[in-house]
């Protein structure tokens, strides 16, 4: 394993930037560092570029206010100047919120808090929320997850141990789910909650779901930085 990067950026990815893929983001940041005139440790080899890594890639289309990018400053740019200088040269919707020295490795990220907005164009059907919560109020819920690696074409996954908490609130014609889910090894993409619910809850058929990553947490469910 590579040793820990020295510095981190906490950044938000919202609005039109939600559709920038993880790979594209990995190209965007090195260029932005150069535009901002911030010297960053480079990769080795022929095509050198800033050595950055982004913890827990976000799915395309999701928004987030708690993305973590690891890198290493090599120049004498004060950390406090980094957010403003980067924000001046980043695409719309990518905003650096903080820049700081890393304390604990990102592998200690244990959970993520998500806010997911399930939109029902015809209004929320009575009982839909209850049905959703009841589905996950059980000791085990094994689903088949498509997998290219597995011989059968899918793997089995019990969702319950990966769900730390769920709460629902009705807002107009939408149900807003706040969920704390396992972050890695394995992590749980909130989309799986909705696809499972769509299959198993007759009342729960939202027309569209928006996913938002709200906070990164450690094993004690404290904010991770």
């Amino acid at each position: 394993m590579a040793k820990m990067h020295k510095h981190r950026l906490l950044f938000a990815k919202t609005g039109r930037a939600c559709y920038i893929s993880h790979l594209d983001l990995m190209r965007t940041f090195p260029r932005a560092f150069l535009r901002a005139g911030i010297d960053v440790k480079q990769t080795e080899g022929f095509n050198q570029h800033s050595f950055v890594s982004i913890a827990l890639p976000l799915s395309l289309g999701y928004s987030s206010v708690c993305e973590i990018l690891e890198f290493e400053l090599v120049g004498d740019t004060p950390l406090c100047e980094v957010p403003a200088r980067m924000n001046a040269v980043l695409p719309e919707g990518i905003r650096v919120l903080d820049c700081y020295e890393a304390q604990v490795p990102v592998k200690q990220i244990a959970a993520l808090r998500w806010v997911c907005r399930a939109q029902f164009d015809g209004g929320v059907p009575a009982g839909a929320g209850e049905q959703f919560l009841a589905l996950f109020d059980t000791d085990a819920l094994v689903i088949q997850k498509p997998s290219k690696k597995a011989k059968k074409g899918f793997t089995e996954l019990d969702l319950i141990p990966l769900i730390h908490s769920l709460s629902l609130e009705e807002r107009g014609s939408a149900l807003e789910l706040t969920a704390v889910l396992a972050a890695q090894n394995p992590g749980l993409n909130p989309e799986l909650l909705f696809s499972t619910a769509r299959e198993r809850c007759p009342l729960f058929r939202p027309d569209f779901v928006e996913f938002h990553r709200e906070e990164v947490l450690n094993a004690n469910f404290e904010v991770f930085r």
Partner: protein
Amino acid sequence: MDPRLNRILPRVQKPARYTGGEYREIQKDKRQVDLRFALCFPDNYEIGMSNLGVRILYGVMNNMDGVWCERCFAPWPDMEAEMRQAGIPLYGLESGDPIGTFDFIGFSLGYEMAYTNVLNMLDLAGLPVRAAERGEDAPIVVAGGTCAYNGEPLADFVDIFSLGEGEDVTVEMLELYRKGRQLGWSKAEYLRHAAQIQGLYVPSLYDVTYHEDGTVSAIVPRDGAPEVITKRIVQELDDAYFPTDTIIPSTEIVHDRVMLELFRGCIRGCRFCQAGFCYRPVRPKSREVLVQQGIEACRSSGYQEMTLSSLSSSDYRQLEPLCDELLDYCGEKNINLNLPSLRADGFSMGIMEKLQRSRKSSITFAPEAGTQRLRDAINKNVTEDDLLQSCRTVFEGGCNAVKLYFMLGLPTETDEDVVGIAELANKVYLTWRQYAVSRARGIRITVSTSFFVPKPFTHFQWEAQISMEEYQRRVQLLRSSITNKSIIYNWHDPDTSFLEAVFARGDRRLGPVIEHAWRSGAKFDSWSEYFNLDRWMEAFGACGVDPLFYTARERPYEEVLPWSHISVGVRPAYFWRERNQAYQSVITPDCRVKCMGCGADRLLACGVCDAPLTRREREEAQANG
């Protein structure tokens, strides 16, 4: 952004193509904007954003007060289907507003196979595709780019063709529009006035009549439109806008790097090359300006790659000192400097060795023809010696892959020329055997052939294209002549080149064919997964047009060509003279060795092509005594 897009975008491939919001996208306050322009590229985002012309015009227009120029690319068919289903019209990436409400829609036409996308984009914008059916309130539809020089096949759909370099004429066109609005002109009145601006061609002001045999009998202007429309050029490139502060896409595009244009035009005069003649005369930029712009473009983009892009970059007079100065900066910042379009000569090889920071494993040359006789006929001044010497240089440097590009079907080509390609490739192989630093890794020589398309405004504009069957026969002949296992042969399918040959020298009777093909589903024709020749043949049949009339027929000098009323500055008599030289296999010296009086110098205010010093350099030299 239209909120409905949030539901669609997660489902389509590469959604970042459709969002805008990139760094340096131009946003303007609509209250301060009185003229809105949709700059459209009839292919996908990745290709359109790689086009330097689009970036230049975007900058030029947005630098005008009150003008907001937005970008628009052809949505990939998955996105198109979603947009049509949801009833979302084509929108500008910057504002998300439907472009059907803008004042202008401008297309950049780089290749004929994009024509159906032009119609498709107009339709997606909610507009009738035919200019005559668009009302007073509909945007003015403009088209520029290489294909606009013979835009006749699109004459039914386009209001104005902009010929040549758009930096100045676009500004004049928009200013005239404002004036017309103040004076309450109708669209027709505006178009009549626009036709008086040099470089703007309004096809509806010209009546085209035909002989019984289908050839054009006359092209007659109306309402005071000029008899000949001459293209525009930028007089002093040093002073022209260059996009050092351009949009940086958030998703990977085809040319994801700084493109530094060293000069416009080409001194060479290869007889098949449309770009070579359409961009005459050569106008260089000062070295000092280039260094400054190159550095600024890298600094402000964060790109770590820069390409020196011009038609034949090694012809830039001060290439070596330019590269040295750029390398001073690039080396320090870990920026790779590339020089594509390499000539096979010692000078170019020297520069290349200097540029590359590590051993180059592969190199590309385009001798275009297999024998010296044919290379002389097409005026491609590359000798076998040059080529083999260049190969020797790169083999000695450890290179073990060579790509060689040729055309099949060039005028005067014989079987001997076809077999000559195999022989030349074999000589490259033998050169490798003799000079390779190590033969352990083997060599890969790739020979590629394309199907020659005669283009307007070249010496070969009167020639017939060989038939697809004959092309296939020559392909097979070449295939059977290549026996060496280290030589790989790739050839292009002839289908698209055949269609290209129809449209490149087409006339207005092709408009209905394009419309018919588009209505039966043609789009993205330059993409093999969407191209379907049968659909096109069906469209020709339905419209009673014979494609062979355009491809298989050699034209006599006296014939009125569909583009006879357009001038790129080069005299038709010069083209004809050079065509006859081709038949004698007589080469013509390049513009630096001897001016052949093609006529392009008349476009220049100073009257001197390819001046050894730019105005800026002359002034500096004077100031320094």
